[in-house]
C-alpha cells in the first residue's frame, strides 16, 4: 500500500464508505493495480445516486522483453529458449512465427522453444519486445473501477489521458454539473483535470 500517495473514499454514509474503501483495496490488489495507481479518490453518494473516481497513475511497468522470462541459448544452426514464466508465451510465439516462419519454430514441450536459424544474434533475441503492459492498463483500471462501483450504475463516463483518469457512474442520467464535480475532485488530490 505504501506506493499509493492518496487513497480516500468520501461518502455521506460513514459505514458504507468504510466498506467501499475495503472493497477498493481488495479489488486493486487483486488486479495488480496498487503499484500502478499513485492517487485515487472516490466519491459515492447513494442518494443522487453517483459514483465518481478520479486519480493518477504512477510508474507504469516497462516493456516485457524475452530476457525477462526466458533463457536464450544460441547454437550453430538453432536457438533454444528455456521459458521460465509461461505468462507471455502466447504473444512470444506469435512474434516468432511472424519473424522466422511457423515451420522454423518448434515447441517440443511447454517450457522449450526451438528456432531453426543460422547465425542468430543472441542479444537481438534477448531484447525482442513481447508485450507492452501500458497498452492494457487503461482497460484494467476501468475494469477494476467497474467492479468497485455499486452494481446497477450502468450510465458511465470514463476517461484515461496523460496518466490521469476519471470514472463517473450512475443509475440515472449523469447530473449536468458532473464536469465541475470531477474538476473539484481533481483539485482535491492536487492534479489538473485531463
Amino acid at each position, binding site marked *: 500500500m505504501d506506493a499509493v500517495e492518496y487513497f480516500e473514499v468520501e461518502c455521506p*454514509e460513514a459505514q*458504507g464508505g468504510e466498506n467501499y474503501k475495503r*472493497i477498493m483495496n481488495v479489488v486493486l490488489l487483486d488486479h495488480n493495480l496498487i503499484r500502478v495507481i499513485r492517487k485515487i479518490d472516490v466519491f459515492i453518494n*447513494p442518494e443522487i445516486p453517483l459514483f465518481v473516481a478520479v486519480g493518477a497513475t504512477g510508474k507504469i511497468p516497462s516493456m516485457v522483453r524475452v530476457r525477462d522470462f526466458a533463457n536464450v541459448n544460441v547454437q550453430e544452426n538453432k536457438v533454444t529458449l528455456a521459458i521460465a514464466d509461461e505468462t507471455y508465451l502466447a504473444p512470444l510465439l506469435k512474434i516468432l512465427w511472424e519473424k522466422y516462419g511457423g515451420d522454423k519454430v518448434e515447441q517440443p514441450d511447454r517450457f522449450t522453444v526451438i528456432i531453426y536459424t543460422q547465425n542468430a544474434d543472441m542479444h537481438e533475441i534477448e531484447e525482442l519486445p513481447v508485450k507492452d503492459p501500458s497498452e492494457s492498463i487503461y482497460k484494467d483500471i476501468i475494469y477494476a473501477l467497474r467492479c468497485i462501483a455499486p*452494481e*446497477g450504475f450502468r450510465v458511465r463516463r470514463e476517461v484515461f489521458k496523460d496518466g490521469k483518469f476519471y470514472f463517473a457512474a450512475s443509475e*440515472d442520467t449523469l447530473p449536468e454539473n458532473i464536469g465541475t464535480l470531477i474538476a473539484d475532485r481533481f483539485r482535491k488530490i492536487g492534479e489538473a483535470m485531463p
Partner: protein
Amino acid sequence: MILIPVTYKGGIYRHDEVTDLIEDLGGYIVQKHVLAQEVVLQCFVPQDDVELIQEVSRPLMGEVTPSPLVGTEIAVVSMSLEIHHLPHPSCDIAEYVRRLGAKSNMVGLARGPGKRIATLNDEERDVINEHDVALFLLGNFETCIKKKFPVLRRGINVPIILVGGPDRETLETIIDPPVDGYVGNTGRFMHRTKESEEIAKLDEIVAEITRVLEKRRLEIAKDPLSVSPARLMDLIREKVPDILDVTSPTPLTVQMAGLRVKLPYDTYAADIRDLEIEDGVLVNDVARVLPSRMRDYILVRIKPFSETNIVV
C-alpha cells in the same frame, strides 16, 4: 415419535451398521456423502435414540452432532450473478449453510441491481416461495436498502432474513413492516471469508436462520403435518426407482413442509399422487403434488392435520 435433525460424521468402515440402526429406529437418511474415506450422513433420528446412535458409533470413531438446518431448503437471493456479488459473499454464505446440512439454492435476480431500477419478476418470486426461508443479500448503503427492499419483498410469503451492510439496529429501523430476521455488517465485499471474525459473521447468519426456522417448526407443531416429509422421501425412493437415476446431488430435497422431487412433472406426477403410504392412504390424500417453477420438477406440499384429519 419426535424426529430431530442430526449429522453423522465417521469413517466409511462399518458405516452401514449406523445406517441400518438409524433405519431400524425409524429414522430417515436425507443425504449421504461419501468423501474418500469419510462418510457424512444427514438424517432425522428419534430424539430418544440419539444416545444409542452415539454409543454404537463410538467404537467406529463416528460423531453425532445436532444440525438444525438438515431437511430445509434455503433460497440465497443475490441481486445478480455478476462479479460484484460472486463468488463472495453469495457463494460463501450459500456454501456455509450447505455445509451445516441445509440445501441452499442461489437465486440470482435478473433485474436486482440498482436502487430505482430493481425489480422482481413472477418466476423469481415463485421460485423463492418454494423454499423454507429466503436469505436476501443486499449491499452496503442504507439509502439503497430502504428504497429497493419493499419492491423485492413484494409477493414473498416465506420468512425473509435480510443481510446487509448497515448494522442490525439500522436495518431494523429502516424496514417496515419488519421481516423475520436481520444480520447486519455483511454487505457487499470482494474477499474470501476466512478470518475468524468473518467466520463468526457466517455463524451469526446460521444462528439467525436457525432461530427463524425454529419459530416455523413451532408453528408447524401446533398443526402437525399429515405425513413427515422424510417419510414421503423414503417412500418415493422405494416406489419410484427412476429417482435413483437422477444425477443431481439431492434428487429428493426435503423441506420443512414438503418435498422437491427432481423428476419431470408431466411424466411422474400421476404416479406419485397414487402412491400408497399406509392402509389405503394415498399421497394425494395428504399432499398437493404441484409443478415446480424450478425446471420441470415436482413440488409436493404436505397438507396439515386440520385439513385432512389423517396422520400417517
